[in-house]
Each structure stands twice: as C-alpha cells, then as structure tokens.
C-alpha cells in the first residue's frame, strides 16, 4: 500500500457537492456510490460488462399486489471512507454525508426506475407547461415533539428566509435565485413560479428541500445568525426528524460512524402505491455506518461480512463477484471521461495557430482513439463508450442513425483521422503537413508534439492518458507527452484564466473559468490537453449541461466556440412545451455535439458496489436505492 493519505482515489469525487449526490438519486440506498463507501484502484481484468442494458431500470421487476412482507430484524451495516463533517441538512454539501442524513430524513421527492418522479414529502405538478409548479405536501408528516405536523409554511419559510437571504450560506442558496418565487397557497400547498417555463424543473433538483421546522429556524433568522444555525445541535444530530425518515439517528461518533434505529412510524408505510414493500418498511432493526479509511480494510470487512456494502475497485470486481457472500453491482453514473483540448490562445503549443479550433481537426482526433479498446483495456470493461454528451440509455439520446460515432467502425483509424486533419490544415494559414511516415509536421518541419495532463496518483487516468497518447501517435501522427499533475494545481494554474485588466471592455468576462474571449483570456500556464476533469452529463435533465457549450457562459476554460447554434437550440429546449418537443430538440443538440467534437468524449465508467449476497433490493440501474427503506435480508 502506498501512502494512504496523499493519494486521490480513482473515484475522484470523494467529497462532492449536493448536485453530485443527488445524481445518485435514491439517496440512502446509493451508499455504494462514490464517496460514501469509498474506492479507488487500478485495473486488471478484461471482461466487457456494460451497464447500459437496463440503466433506466424499466426491466427490473418490482413486487406488486399482495405478498408476504419480509421479517423485520438484524442490522444493515455499511462503511464510509471518510468521516462526515456535518449532518446539518441545511449546510451539508457532501455526497457521503447526504446519504447519512438520508437514512433519517427524506427529501421532497426522488426518482424511480423509468425516470419517474416519486413524491416523498411533496408532489410537484404543473399545469401551464412548467412556469408554475404546485407542491402538495403529504398529510401524514410529523416532526418530533414539539414541532408537530410538517406544513407548506415550513418549506416556504426555509426558502424565503434562508436560501434567498443574503446572510445565510446554506447549501441550497444557488438553487433559489431571487427571480424564483415561492408562496404558500394552503396549509399543505405551496406554489413556485419560475422566470421562464421549465418542463424538467424537478429534474434540476432545485426544488428539492429537506423538511425543517419553522420554529427551529426562526430564532436564527431573527438574529441572522449563520454560524449559530450551522452549529445547532438539533439540526446536527437530526433530533427533529419524527417520522420523516426510515431510521432515527441514535449516535454520531464523529470519527467512527453513526448508529440508527428503526423508525416504526415511517410515513412512507402509507405509500404502498409507490412500492408494495413500503408497507412495513424499514426491515432492519438498526443501521450502522462505520468510518473505515483504509480501502484494504473496507474490502476485508465486505469479505468477512462485517459490512453489507462497499465500493469495489475495478481490478477486484471479478474476485469479489466470485465470493459466495458478495454480489457486485455495476451502477451507471452520469460523469464522463473526456480529453479536453485547449482552444484558447495558449493551447496547441506544437506550432503556430491553434489547430484545436478547427472542427475537422477535432473530428480527426476523434477518429484516432479506439473507444471500445479504451473501455475494455483501461476500464476493464466496467464502462460504456461515449459519443455525445449523454449516455446511450438516456431518454434524450438521439437515434443511432443520426449520430456520428467517432472512434468506432469506419470512424476509427489512421485514414479517417489523417484525411480529416489534412482537410483542417488546408484551411489554416500555416504550413502544416504530413510526411511519408504519417507524422504531422509543423511549419518548421518538426513532428507536432503536444502535452496531455492527468491527475497524479490516479492509475486509471494515467493509463487512459497513455492510451490516448499512443493512439494519437499511431493514427494522427502527433506525438503526445503525458504529464502527471495534482488536480488542484492544474485547476489553479492551467484550467482557470487570469481575468484581464480590461475585463470591462471585453465582449464578456465571466470569472476565472471564462475570463473572456479565447484570444485574450488565458491561464497562467500554457497547456494542450487534459483528462484531469470528468464532467456531469445530466441524463435526467440535459438543460443543466448548457454551460459547457456556450462560448460566453461562466464555464468555458477550454475556449470552445460552437460551430452550431447552441444558444438558439438550448433556448428552444428551455421553452419547449412538451416532452416530445424536448426530445426532438435534445436529439438535435446531441447530434451537433457529437459532430462538433468540443472535446474527446470517451467513456462513462460505472459505479461498482459489492453488496452482501443475501441483500434484496440493490439493482444495476441508475436509480438503484430509490426504494432503500424496502430493502431486506433474505432468510
């Protein structure tokens, strides 16, 4: 084992913000996702196991009608790789802690297989095409004494007095800009009005709230006491949760973990229309989470049955799946692996000009990397090939007939790569050319050599970078120098730009991630390509990914200017009035992205979680965990 502290795991988002863990959907059951159970490692096996087949979970059988309910008993044990910083629902921004809060406190709604919204605390509906949303709160929601019943007022107060107030730094602040209004329209009803219609508003996770008693928040609101609210013992120890979660937090030992007991009056017991097994849920008498920082120890605990769930590194998936007492589930997730090209002025350092700005050149590079081999070789088969900004299983993925699949079939190899690159260099003012050995030469007659950065200590990422380098050399005739760098250093010195002094005179300047047009705003250090960051593709709500493709958004470190009308198409998507219309527009957007190749879109790695084989509930789909209170141990 190398230094266990200095190393970042291959599950690189060990602590991540709220958006990320919300992507994991069924919050509590997603304990196996990155961050909570931890995981990292390298790769050995070569088997192809994709998670695409049933990623939406529509083929997963769910029990319905009358059936015997499982016995209540035993303990569900899980492990996490790092201690939770806070369990205060208003301030938590981390994935792992989000799961821990979720055991004791549900949020407004979740998503279930088939991408259906499952109302938990409230149901959100719209009747005017997504401009006004009405939230109807369940009747059987109770806080612990003395706070009484959960009402619409609690949610409205929380949003107006905390998330929309300047003094409070709650995690949800960014989800509630002042243009969004919320008002109480009945004891159990509230209404949200958006500045413009959005049919996928629930999928943005913005209207997702925890229930917090108004009386608990009020003293802090009156004093405008941000620190006091963060440190409130009732919030930190989840003492107010009543019947609002499947379990009740009994003890939180800061470094070693949490203990929960079964909540007999769990409100979802009345929601058998959603899932029959909710009738007597949950089915464990207690739940324990232990902090086990060392990966070898977590895997040892999974092997000996001391934990019921733990993340498994790719090279050990086969080994653990072969154990009698463990089943490994491959769970799709929305983050992709991309190789980003620097199209700003300090990118492409192999010669004059910046060839990355040429669409044909990017397409040529797209033809140079064999994505299937990458997935099988580097990710050991525990990933899916990526062609555009959506996984194939997403409802918004265009039909295969429309899609240019760079890096596969006819669109892979040196001929398709070099012919496109030749077309690109004939368009630029500088004398680039290919020699007889298939090497791309710059105007000085030297082979073009560019750099590719990957995160230090990330074995999978390093292998991916080396594979890309090899493929570029073989198929595009471009030499690649692969360099390791710390993620934070790359972000500071390469990814973010220095804001120019004349920022006000520029067409736009949107902070350090897009400090201005690509000819004037550059980072402190020059760079060509990077695989340091994976980005979220938002399979449930692709509208959220708009910022990655607008030249003047607040996020364009790579200086991409779309050759298609991104602004107009996203505008159309924002204003779409039916899911069918949205489908059509997104189809067009993703075909354009695949064709324009803003970056090399390579793969979607799967989450890999080992569960005790007697556990009934986990599933290999994006929504695994949505029905966690209904999980049980088979006798």
């Amino acid at each position: 084992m190398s230094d266990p502290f200095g190393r970042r795991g291959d599950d690189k988002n060990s602590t991540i913000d709220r958006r990320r863990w919300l992507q994991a959907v069924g919050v509590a059951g997603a304990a196996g996702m990155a961050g909570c159970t931890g995981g990292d490692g390298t790769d050995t096996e070569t088997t192809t196991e994709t998670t695409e087949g049933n990623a939406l979970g529509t083929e997963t059988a769910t029990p319905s009608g009358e059936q015997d309910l499982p016995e209540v008993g035993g303990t569900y044990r899980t492990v996490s790789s790092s201690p939770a910083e806070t369990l205060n629902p208003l301030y938590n921004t981390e994935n792992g802690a989000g799961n821990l809060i979720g055991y004791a406190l549900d949020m407004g709604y979740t998503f279930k297989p088939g991408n259906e919204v499952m109302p938990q605390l409230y149901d959100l509906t719209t009747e005017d095409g997504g401009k006004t949303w009405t939230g109807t709160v369940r009747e059987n929601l109770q806080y612990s004494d003395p706070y009484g019943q959960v009402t619409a007022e609690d949610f409205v107060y929380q949003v107006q007095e905390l998330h929309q107030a300047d003094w409070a730094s709650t995690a949800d602040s960014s989800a509630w800009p002042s243009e969004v209004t919320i008002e109480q329209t009945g004891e159990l009803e509230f209404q949200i009005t958006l500045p413009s219609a959005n049919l996928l508003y629930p999928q943005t996770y913005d209207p997702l709230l925890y229930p917090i008693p108004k009386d608990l928040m009020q003293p802090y609101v009156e004093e405008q006491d941000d620190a006091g609210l963060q440190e409130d013992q009732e919030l930190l120890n989840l003492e107010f949760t009543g019947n609002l979660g499947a379990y009740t937090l009994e003890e939180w030992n800061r470094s070693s973990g949490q203990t929960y007991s079964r909540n007999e009056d769990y409100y979802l017991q009345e929601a058998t229309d959603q899932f029959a097994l909710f009738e007597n849920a949950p089915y464990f008498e207690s739940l324990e989470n232990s902090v086990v920082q060392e990966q070898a120890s977590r895997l040892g605990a999974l092997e000996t049955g001391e934990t019921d769930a733990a993340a498994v590194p790719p090279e050990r998936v086969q080994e653990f799946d072969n154990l009698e007492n463990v089943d490994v589930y491959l769970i799709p997730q929305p983050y992709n692996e991309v190789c980003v090209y620097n199209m700003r002025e300090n990118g492409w350092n192999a010669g004059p000009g910046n060839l990355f700005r040429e669409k044909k050149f990017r397409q040529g590079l797209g033809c140079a990397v064999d994505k299937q081999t990458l997935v099988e070789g580097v990710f050991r088969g525990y990933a899916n090939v990526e062609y555009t900004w959506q996984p194939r299983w997403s409802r918004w993925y265009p039909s295969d007939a429309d899609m240019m699949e760079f890096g596969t079939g006819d669109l892979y190899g040196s001929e398709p790569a070099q012919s496109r690159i030749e077309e690109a260099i004939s368009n630029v003012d500088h004398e680039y050319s290919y020699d007889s050995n298939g090497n791309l030469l710059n105007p000085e007659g030297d082979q073009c050599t560019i750099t590719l950065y990957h995160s230090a200590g990330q074995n999978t990422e390093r292998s991916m970078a080396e594979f890309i380098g090899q493929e570029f050399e073989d198929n595009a005739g471009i030499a690649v120098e692969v360099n390791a760098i710390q993620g934070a250093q790359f972000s500071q010195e390469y990814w973010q730009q220095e804001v120019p002094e004349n920022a006000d005179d520029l067409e736009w300047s949107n902070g350090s991630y897009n400090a201005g047009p690509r000819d004037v705003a550059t980072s402190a250090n020059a760079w060509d390509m990077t695989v340091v960051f994976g980005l979220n593709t938002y399979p449930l709500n692709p509208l959220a990914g708009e910022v990655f493709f607008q030249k003047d958004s607040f996020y364009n470190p790579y200086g991409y200017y779309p050759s298609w009308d991104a602004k107009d198409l996203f505008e159309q998507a924002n204003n779409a009035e039916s899911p069918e219309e949205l489908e059509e527009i997104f189809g067009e957007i993703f075909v354009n992205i695949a064709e324009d190749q803003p970056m090399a879109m390579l793969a979607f790695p799967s989450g890999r979680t080992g569960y005790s084989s007697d556990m009934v509930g986990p599933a290999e789909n994006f929504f695994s965990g949505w029905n966690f209170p209904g999980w049980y141990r088979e006798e």
Partner: protein
Amino acid sequence: MGMEWYIVRRVAWAAIVTFIIVSVTWGLMAAAPNPEVQKAATQAAMDGEDPAAAADLARQRAQLDRPLHERFMDYVVGVYTLNWGWSSTRNQPVTQALIESLHYTVQYSVPWTILTVLIGPLVGLYSAANQYSWKDHAATGFAFFGYAIPNFFFGIILLLLFGVQLRWIPIVYNTDVAVFSVENAIQLSVPIFVLVTGSIGAIMRVSRNESAEYTNADFVKTAKAKGVSTYRIYFRHVLRPTMVPLSTTIVGYLLALFTGSSLLVEVVFGIPGLGRTLYDAVIAQDTSLVLGSVLFFTFVATIGNLIQDMVYTVLDPRISFEDR
C-alpha cells in the same frame, strides 16, 4: 526555592513557547489556500454551476470573509479563556473533539508506551548479557524487523491474516465495547503489537550497547567479587546507569511516535483517535481543531521534557537543579 522555583519557571516558559508555536501555526494556516473553497469551486465547475459563487459561499461558511486581525484576536482571546472554538470538520467544540479522540488514543497508547519502555531495555539487557550468542542475534533480528517494516504495511498484513483469513479479530473497530473488556483487548491487540514492534528497535539497540559498556565496568566487577547475584548486578548496577541516556530517547522518541506513527495505525485499524483527528483537521484546514491539537501536543511535549529532566535527578544523583 531551588527545585520548585525551577519548575515554576519552566512551566511559565512552556506557556510562552506554546503561544509562539500556536501563533506561527495560525499564521501558516491563514496563509495557505483553503482546500474546501477550492473543492467547492471545482465541483461546481464540474457540474456546470458558477464556480465563483460556490467559492464565495464556501468562504462565507468557513468565516474566511472576516479580516485577518479580527480572526487572530478572536483566536488569542479564545486560547486564554479556554474557548478553543468550533471544529468545522466535526461540527462540535474543539475541546470535545480532542477529548473524544484522546479517549481512543489512550486505549492503545498507554499499553504501547508501557510495553515499549519495559520490553525495549530488557531485550537490550538480555542481548548484552548474551553478547554475540544466537540469543543476541535473535533479539537483534527481532528488533530490526520491527524497526524496518513500515507500521501501516505490517498492520494491513496482520489484519488480512488475523481478520480476513483466521477471523480472530474484527476488521471494523467497534467503539461500543467497554474499555476494560475482552473484546476491546482483542481488537487492540494487533495495533498494539504493531506499534510495540515498531518502537522497541531503537531502544533495544541503545540499551544493549550501553549495557555492554557497563558489564565490564569496575563497579560491576566489584559487585561480582562481593558475590552479588547476577540478576541484582544486571538490574541494579547495569540497567540503572543504562537508563540515564535512554530516558532522553524514551521520552522524546515516544512523544514523536505518539503524534506520527499512531496516525497510520489508526487509519489501518479504523481507530478514531487523535492522530486521525489532527490529520483530517490539517487536510481540511479546520483551523480551530488544528490549533487545539497543536496546543495539546505542545503542552505534552514541554511537560514531557520537564518530566524527563526530573527523571535524570532520580536516576543519577549527581545531576541537580537546586542551584538553577
């Protein structure tokens, strides 16, 4: 006066030293970029949200938006009023965080220290008494093995052997068992074994060499001539002078191990002790908790040094602080 006055001055000096060290630490922490802010910005960026706004919010949450001098003054006042502040990574008062962590560290550090201090010199003495025999080589080999093998690696190997293969010890450390219980003794046995083997090496070698020097000293020869028993000679006439230079090694060495090595063992065995608390606090720039821990360790170190000086006078009557 005399000795008492010397102790009072040393304790007062310890307070000044502590303040200087902690102030320097505070300065370094304040100067370093906060990783939480960076993390918030990066994550927001990956998700297509505004990174600058996320960074501002994180800064506000960590109260880094207040002026530097205000934060320092708050901290100094806090130190002297024993209000060490709020740990942002554990969301509890710093003193409570330290006490909770210390509770688990003490459970293994006390037996570890006692066993090291007892076994180290004794193995050294045994080696010296059997110099160049196979027993000497075996003892030396054992000491060097423990010294050479990294604790975390040895820990993982033993955990896999005794936990996963033989299933004699639990993998996940259980904080619910009573301190004085068989379960606790079982779960702590391997971590303590790893720590003891790791720390007796140096002590054993020093005591072996020191003892070897005294086995042929004139006073030992005289004792032998007077017919004093072998055990009495070794324990009273050889071990005691050997312990004078060793006392420096023992106290100093063990204090360093207390802060360093225990971290790795705590991580491997999942013990929620001080090492992990301090490490996590440093990594996440939990300033209040880092400073609380630094205060604690500085206090232990300065008082430890004082005790060490006192021990000299007991072991060697020629040393005196009466006239200092």
